[in-house]
């Protein structure tokens, strides 16, 4: 059974239909890419799935449970965690404090225990801090540990966002353009990290991305949207050769870049 199932999902803003009858399923352990031109409705799909916007119609199930109507923090608590297209961190906090704050679900205790701590509280704090150290090391942010997030270089900021997403202990991550603004070297590194996140950590990934190299390298499956609709779906190879996709989105530039597509 699919981990995430989206069934004829629609969303309109006034007269604008941003998402139109989208159906999509992501299996446990998969990396699926959601691509499409700007304004296609990809971020809106993320907002609907993670409870930041209510759908106009349609169903969303995560791990077999209907999640429409749940609050974003509840959905995160179920293990479905998203990142944002526009850089989102806790700006005034240090890198480490950002990551510790993101481990909230591991650290939280009943309210009264804030003032009357017992061993269990200390144990949870220790677990959360250790997990934060581990995530920081995994993403190679250790040398920036005490730097205030707002002082980070752009590439490191995007890594910190990934660290925050991992901090919530997700079963599934929804990443909104994690490679945007990264240089070639940084996006190559991102590819490695994404494979490890899915492979070693066993986290299912749905990724919105414009960088076609990243998409082609990490995806098991690619879903293409245009004007709020799903226009194609399949393996990276399949999608790359899809007429409509090339027309709608990939354009000449991509054909030139792509290695030897059959005519």
């Amino acid at each position, binding site marked *: 059974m699919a981990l995430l199932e989206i069934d004829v999902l629609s969303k309109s803003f006034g007269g604008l239909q941003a998402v139109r009858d989208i159906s999509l399923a992501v299996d446990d352990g998969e990396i699926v890419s959601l691509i499409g031109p700007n304004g296609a409705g990809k971020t809106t799909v993320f907002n609907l799935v993670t409870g930041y916007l209510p759908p106009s119609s349609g169903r969303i199930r995560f791990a077999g449970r209907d999640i429409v109507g749940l609050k974003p923090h509840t959905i995160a608590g179920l293990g479905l965690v998203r990142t944002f297209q526009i850089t989102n961190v806790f700006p005034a906090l240090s890198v480490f404090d950002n990551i510790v704050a993101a481990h*909230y679900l591991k650290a939280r205790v009943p309210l009264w225990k804030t003032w009357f701590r017992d061993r269990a509280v200390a144990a949870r704090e220790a677990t959360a801090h250790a997990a934060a150290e581990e995530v920081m090391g995994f993403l190679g942010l250790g040398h920036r540990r*005490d730097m205030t997030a707002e002082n980070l270089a752009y590439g490191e900021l995007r890594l910190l966002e990934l660290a925050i*997403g991992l901090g919530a202990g997700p079963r599934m991550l929804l990443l909104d353009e994690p490679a945007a603004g990264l240089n070639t070297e940084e996006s190559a590194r991102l590819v490695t990290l994404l494979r490890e996140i899915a492979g070693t950590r066993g986290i299912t990934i749905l990724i919105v991305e414009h960088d076609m190299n990243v998409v082609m390298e990490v995806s098991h499956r690619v879903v293409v949207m245009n004007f709020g609709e799903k226009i194609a779906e399949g393996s990276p190879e399949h999608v790359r050769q899809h007429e409509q996709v090339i027309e709608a989105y990939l354009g000449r530039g991509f054909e030139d870049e792509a290695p030897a597509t059959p005519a």
Partner: protein
Amino acid sequence: MSSQRLPLLALLAAAIALPLVFRGEYFMHLMIMVLFYTVLASSLNIVTGYIGQLSLGHAAFFGIGCYAAAMLTLDAGWSVWTAMIIAGLAAAVAGFVIGYITLRLDGHYFVLITLAFAEVLRLVVINWEEVTRGPLGFPNIPRPSIVLGGEVMVDFSSKTHFYYVALVLVVITLWAKHRFVYSAMGRASVAIRENPRLAQSVGIDPFYYSMVAFVLGAFFAGLSGWFYAHYISYVGPDVYGFGFMVTMLIMIAVGGRGTIVGPVIGAAIITIVVEELRFAREIRLSLFGLLLMLSILFFPRGLVSVPDLLRRRGWWPGAGKTGTA
């Protein structure tokens, strides 16, 4: 992270010894007001500094504490110490109700409605004379006393007695706040202040923690109101006015919001400055405003950040710290 702890302990030791060294009545009064404002400003800081909500109605919770103390001891004849608990709880309950209504709203509406709440309470207090005695308020609020085995042990005839009660309140407030700040809950609150959308994405419920901080802040504001009522021995509608509100806001801005020590520094400096500016009468508030502007201009993160700023210029030992508590 708990580098704030050591200076606090040193400060506490000095505070305990203070009345043994300096005994002047006026000096004691100043110190009592500093301690009182430390509790009040710290209570606002829990909401404004940690959750990041500008609660302009915070004086209402202080006022509720004041009136609860006055009415319970004068009209109902309760003991001053029972009144203390009830004053705190009454403010906390009011905080729960107001928070429940306003904390779901957008920030601007939150500011306006909390402000309106305090103003409405002030008008009610002025007009509902049978219960609140209207503009006259409650004079002659009794002093506390500590009675053991039928004998009065401490009669609070001396300012020193009030000083130690205020000090105990400060210690309780700062202890509770310290525990709050260095906990999962404190981190969740700061996360909400820094980026509520992102906080939600890692499982933090902004409404829940805003409520907790709001109720906690209201409780300590109520406690400070109880102290004020019995120390000054008079309570009138002014306690709901904008005067206290502005004073505590300035204290946390000058000292440093979102820190434990900030409101302590702010309370000390502003209380003393206000006293020293008494000679200036009419222009006092203008001078006050000027000081606030200068302070925010030069130390936007408050006076607590001064060692940090100096360190960055190499004028103070130790590496420049980049994080905040």
